[in-house]
């Protein structure tokens, strides 16, 4: 982790958001350092959108604090300039042309990079004279991403940007996102329920379920700290010290488990393998859903394709 003096991209303490009696986000503590591409994953209704809308200041927390790049979200115009946001369903103005969207960006953002914007628009095959109302979902997402990125923010926040796109459009969108992040030297936070996308682009992970943070950290650290274990049936009933069982399900004559271990595992009857990101996240989500140790409940499986 970088240990410079710059404040973290996101710093949440006891962050809570309630809509009436329903808790959308409960008592979240988070620290996300700079320079990361953060994947925010969880089933629908887990609080992903709430967290991202809090982060860009569209809504205000019920209690707790959230600091984005060292300041309250959307504190002033200067702070707004440092954060780019692509909202869910990537809203654009249907009567505006593509060029007018860029003009809007140029008029409303002091740090606007028109050359970058025009280059990107051309690269993804958008015509400046096209009306945004006639764009496909993928084109609209590319336009919204360009508008958010060409103001050269330090942090890009994307709320389920690729959820509604077909695989090809999604692929192009994620490629664009990574190019922007590299070119701007920016951090990014994107929410998704598509674990494949997260595994592909993210190097930092936040798992949200039932309005709470279940797991957070650098992907490399998380993968290093967890193992997949195949053990004979019942062989996981007693665990060595320093080993925490995250999830387990039967797999033929074996129990297949994800464990968190802070030391190498040397149990002779176990087969120990590295865990992949998808399995890791599913194990935490299953545990959060309060499912019996026997398996992943259907909703969680469906939510995480």
């Amino acid at each position, binding site marked *: 982790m970088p240990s410079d003096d710059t404040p973290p991209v996101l710093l949440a303490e006891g962050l809570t958001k309630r809509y009436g009696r329903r808790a959308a986000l409960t008592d979240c503590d988070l620290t996300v350092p700079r320079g990361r591409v953060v994947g925010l994953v969880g089933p629908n209704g887990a609080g992903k959108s709430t967290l991202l809308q809090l982060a860009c200041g*569209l809504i205000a927390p019920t209690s707790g604090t959230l600091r984005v790049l060292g300041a309250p979200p959307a504190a002033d*115009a200067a702070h707004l300039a440092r954060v780019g946001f692509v909202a869910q369903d990537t809203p654009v103005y249907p009567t505006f042309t593509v060029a007018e969207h860029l003009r809007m960006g140029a008029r409303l953002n002091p740090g606007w990079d028109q050359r970058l914007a025009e280059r990107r628009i051309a690269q993804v095959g958008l015509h400046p004279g096209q009306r945004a109302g006639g764009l496909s979902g993928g084109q609209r997402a590319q336009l919204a991403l360009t508008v958010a990125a060409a103001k050269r923010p330090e942090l890009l926040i994307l709320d389920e940007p690729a959820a509604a796109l077909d695989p090809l459009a999604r692929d192009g969108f994620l490629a664009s996102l990574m190019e922007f992040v590299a070119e701007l030297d920016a951090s990014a936070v994107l929410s998704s329920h598509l674990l494949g996308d997260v595994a592909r682009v993210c190097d930092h992970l936040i798992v949200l379920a039932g309005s709470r943070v279940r797991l957070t950290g650098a992907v490399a650290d998380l993968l290093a700290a967890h193992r997949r274990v195949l053990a004979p049936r019942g062989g996981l009933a007693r665990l060595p010290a320093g080993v925490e069982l995250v999830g387990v399900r039967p797999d033929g004559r074996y129990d297949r488990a994800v464990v968190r271990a802070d030391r190498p595992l040397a149990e002779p009857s176990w087969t120990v393998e590295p865990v992949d990101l998808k399995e890791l996240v599913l194990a935490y989500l299953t545990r959060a859903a309060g499912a019996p140790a026997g398996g992943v409940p259907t909703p969680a499986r469906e939510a995480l394709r």
Partner: protein
Amino acid sequence: MIWMSWRQFRAQAVVGAAALAVLAGYLLWLGFDVRDAHAGYLAQCRPQGDCAEALARFARDYENTLLYLAALLALLPAVVGMFWGAPLIARELESGTHRLVWNQSVTRRRWLLVKLLVVGLGAVLVAGAASLLLTWAAAPVDAVAGNRFSTVVFGARDVAPVAAAGFALVLGTVIGLLTRRTLPAMALTGLAVVLLQFAVPNLVRPHLMPPVRADRAMTEQAINEARGLGSITNSATVRGLGVPGAWVTDVSELRTRDGRTLDRRAFDDCFSARDDPAAPATGQYGAAARCLGALDLHVELAYQPNHRYWPFQLLESGLYLLAAGVLTLFGLWRIRRRVT
């Protein structure tokens, strides 16, 4: 932000400009028509040396047209509030584009303020042009009729309609901010502005300055000059009493010499009074007027003299602008706190 506001307002502005062009064309034609007629009547009556009757006819010729136009101008603020004000924020919230535009490097307050100023300028231009042209077109008739300081006409002359349109715009915007849906915001705004257009002239305007009060003896002749006797509640009142050079805002019930309200039975009795065949009553209320006139009755009139016309124009405009300012502050506070 100005470009952005204009770009979003453009289509509505074009519709407004087109409607204004039609209205302006008609008002220009009307203005010249009024002046021709005025000159025509004067040319006819001058050789005879008495123009009072001819000018009264001239004013009557245009009375209805000008009342319709005053009603149209009274509707203008409602239209501005509904079609320009209500969608200003509500449409962004409804279509989700606020999530795009509020994350540009412009604070929401500035965004709202600039949008209000740009669209507000449009509202002032349209209402100002319509009011100016109508005031000009009607000037010869107003001069003869002497009634521009009256309930309906006052709100369709000079600056009052402009301030009302500006207020309606802000009201529509704030209602849209609260309802967050365009159609309900439009309906509520239309209703609220129309109600205000009734309430302000009848309930607020008469009290902008303390009225002058005068006592008037209701002789048979005075009663016959009234526009009506009694009311739907059958109270002892006379309606439509005028004071030359003033806007009468209130007329008390008929009172007896000792200041008490006339007994309703005495009032009714006079309506069944029989005429004296020797000297029949000639006024429009006949024997009833003679009977009431004999009771030595009087009323108290409250009125605003015509020289208060401009103070009233400025006072009413000031009130609308003050209300618009308060609503704007509320909108700026509200949009910062919580909207989505």
